[in-house]
């Protein structure tokens, strides 16, 4: 329950406070969000599999975000930031789809 409340609180805060994103972070924010989404869906699947662990989730969440941002940063330094961020989005998207497929099988048995 509390995690869901945290999610709702975060969305509401983001909508109400309307802070600005620092310019250097702007290219990384969307990637970080997608990476975090991957971690969340992975956690949900693990939970439904009965193997969820707080520590694992926290570590996977943070590492996902950091690694995704690092990859994009490295790509920017190498001059292939656009392509690399597309690649990261594709990979994370595939993972999210597979996680969601597993969740769907758990919830709907289909």
């Amino acid at each position, binding site marked *: 329950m509390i995690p869901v409340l945290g*999610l709702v609180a*975060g969305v509401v805060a983001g909508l109400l406070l309307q802070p600005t994103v620092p310019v250097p972070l702007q290219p990384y924010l969307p990637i970080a969000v997608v990476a975090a989404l991957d971690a969340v869906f992975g956690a949900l699947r693990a*939970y439904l599999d009965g193997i969820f662990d707080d520590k694992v989730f926290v570590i996977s969440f943070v590492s996902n975000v950091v690694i995704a941002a690092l990859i994009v940063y490295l790509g920017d330094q190498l001059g292939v930031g656009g392509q690399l961020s597309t690649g990261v989005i594709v990979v994370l998207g595939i993972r999210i789809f597979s996680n969601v497929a597993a969740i769907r099988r758990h919830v709907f048995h289909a």
Partner: protein
Amino acid sequence: MPEPKRRSLRSALTSRPAWGQALVAVLLGALGFAAALQVRVNDAEGVYPGARRGDLIELLDSLDAANARAEKQINELETTKRELQTSTTATQTALLEARREASTLAILAGTVPARGPGVVIRIDDPEAAVSAVTMLNAIEELRDAGAEAIEINNSARVVAQTYFAVSDGTLTIDGAEVRPPYVIDAVGSAATLSVAVGFPGGLQDEVQALGGSVTVEQTDALDVTALAEERTPEYAQPAP
């Protein structure tokens, strides 16, 4: 199999808070915050603030290319404009030249009045002894001295086609009778024209020998108002 899992999902929503759960909640909150923020930034600020450097450079390059194309077009149009202006100027110059030439020719042809310095020569001929030959000689002397426009008695303009004749003892110029005293208006250098009249054996001597007298008056502004008939050549055509 499915039953315990459904229960576990329900229990997840109702389970007691723990530090781990709180940490998960914080992370999810951060995720929601970031997602909402990103969505809002995308909506509010358009494409450019969030765009990467490479994309912006590409965009800038395409704008530069478009700019260069537009500038090239401007240059071409300016060149065309200059060419058109040049040709217009050339046409105007030619027109001006033609007008000047036309006015020169009009003075020579005697179709327009002329004004300038010159001499007024008065020939008194009480015995009517001045012949067409004498008058022609006088005109030739004046032409030799550079007379540019000549009229006689304010009625006969002397031009290239002018002829002198005597009919019934009266001098005629271009078929029109002219009676003494004859007054010749000649536009040209006044001093030179006076000399042309007065040199020994010239018009003055000739007329005095015939019993007449000649007076020459120099003037700075002489109007030659008599006009010659405008003639279009009937037979002569410009040779190629």
